[in-house]
């Protein structure tokens, strides 16, 4: 109960922090603009002539690559820069509650941005009769994937007091995790290594695990993959925060 109260308090504050600056609005506008542009211009939503949102979801791993670390970069870097981390961690709360509260706030924020893409959902339902089950599954996959990006951003944010450094680090790490399942790279690997190696590398990719969601399959293995990325990254965040304090 008490820990739940602490987490809610931190989540509330953090969310308020997003909306008290223009960052939140800029992010949402850019996110919606980019998803729209990519869906209709590059994804060929209309040209496909299919009642599904593949053209929309196709771009999510790539859009998240830059947008999500931008949301997560301030989580700990800002606390460290301004010294408020000292305030936060001398409160009668555990570091875990703080880490989780902050993470949940940023995740909820991305969730909100995702909810605001509802016009494409309406559009596709207006134009045809899509399999909405697939669309919900892909939304879930996209949300889980965003959470994984965020958890990694939380980790890199704890590493530094500089938000830009945090941003760059998390983009690089996330890029690696996307690329290891990217077709051209897996083809490249397949030509040189045994299929087992290729599969192992690809199984670490955000892309590979996102693909089954886009087909409407909510496989527990994919869900566990994303959840374990989050747990691992948040755990590492706590280790980093502890080691800073230990000197």
């Amino acid at each position, binding site marked *: 109960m*008490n820990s739940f*109260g*602490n987490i809610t*308090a*931190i989540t*509330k*504050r953090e969310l*308020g*922090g997003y909306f*008290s*600056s223009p960052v939140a609005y800029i992010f949402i506008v850019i996110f919606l603009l980019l998803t729209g542009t990519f869906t209709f211009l590059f994804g060929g939503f209309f040209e496909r002539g299919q009642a599904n949102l593949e053209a929309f979801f196709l771009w999510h791993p790539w859009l998240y690559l830059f947008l999500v670390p931008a949301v997560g970069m301030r989580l700990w870097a800002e606390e460290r820069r*301004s*010294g*408020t981390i*000292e*305030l*936060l*961690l*001398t*409160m*009668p*709360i*555990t570091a875990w509650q703080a880490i989780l509260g902050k993470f949940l706030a940023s995740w909820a924020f991305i969730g909100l941005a995702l909810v605001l893409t509802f016009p494409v959902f309406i559009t596709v339902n207006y134009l045809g009769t899509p399999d909405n089950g697939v669309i919900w599954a892909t939304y879930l996959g996209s949300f889980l994937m965003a959470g994984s990006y965020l958890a990694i951003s939380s980790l890199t944010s704890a590493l530094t007091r500089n938000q830009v450094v945090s941003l760059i680090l998390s983009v690089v790490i996330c890029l690696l995790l996307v690329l290891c399942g990217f077709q051209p790279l897996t083809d490249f690997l397949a030509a040189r290594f045994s299929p087992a190696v290729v599969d192992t590398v690809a199984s670490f990719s955000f892309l590979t695990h996102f693909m089954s969601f886009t087909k409407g399959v909510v496989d527990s293995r994919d869900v566990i993959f994303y959840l374990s990325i989050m747990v691992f990254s948040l755990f590492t965040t706590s280790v980093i925060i502890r080691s800073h*304090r*230990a*000197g």
Partner: protein
Amino acid sequence: MLVSYQTFMIRVENLSKAFGPKVAVNRISFSVEKGEVLGFLGPNGAGKSTSMRMITGFIPPSEGKITVGGYDMVADPIPAKRLIGYLPENAPSYADMTVSGFLGFCAELRGLRGDEKKKAVNRAVEMCFLESVYYQSVDTLSKGYRHRTCFAQSIIHDPDILILDEPTDGLDPNQKHEIRSLIRRMGEKKVIIFSTHILEEVEAVCSRAIIIDRGQIVANGTPQELKQKSDLAGAVLLCASGVTAAEVTDRLANVSGARKTTIVKQDQGKIWARVYPKSESRNGELARAVHQAVQGWAIEELHTEEGRLDEVFRNITLPDTAKEETK
């Protein structure tokens, strides 16, 4: 919440902290009782902030034990932290929040909700005179207000223990005065530890002072006791007119109980001289002896000095070589 028979609210034993090879705090031990206002003194980088950060549970000690209100800070940090209100150095606060939002958030982390929270925020706002900026965003505040906002945060849950890292740093004299009187007022019922560079503050507020230098406690006592360590303590200052310096030194050389005599300054026919006692001179003995010796002179001033804290501080904390240079 607090059991009254616990006299030692804070107990620190053999506390050490090393950052890599650099030892910031080296085996310090002390304890503080309820009703005490303890001043932490020391030059920059002496380990004051590091010690306070360990006591408040922000950084874990490399060695040693901290007990706060009976709870071990390392093994059982949550109940220990509950007892403490902490004002970190430079008084950080969330720049993107309003004063009311910030204090509300801190109150929530202290476990206060609803009416309790509202009351706590109002009380802290009142005590720190923040009414006029209540709805203002923290980043639009002047330094003094920002400082007081963070101070308000530290007293929001009416803690039994207050730990203040340079609470008057960067404030104007009026604000300093306010904070000092606040500390003094609250010190009657609480345990307060605060660090400062300002020695007059120690005399004005503290019931006890600890001087830390290079990570170690070099002095621990009431401001009065510390002043006794001064060279000047018990010295007699004499001001006379119409005599020469030679006459003064000559006359005072033979005063019983005097170690040495120095001429402090000469100005417009007046001459100031200081007579240092041989050993601890008892109540005005030296002053009477000096008075005897200079009978017949026109005395403008004659008094026994108390000793000065800044001199004690310098003597204790300056490395020996630097001490020679300043003499």
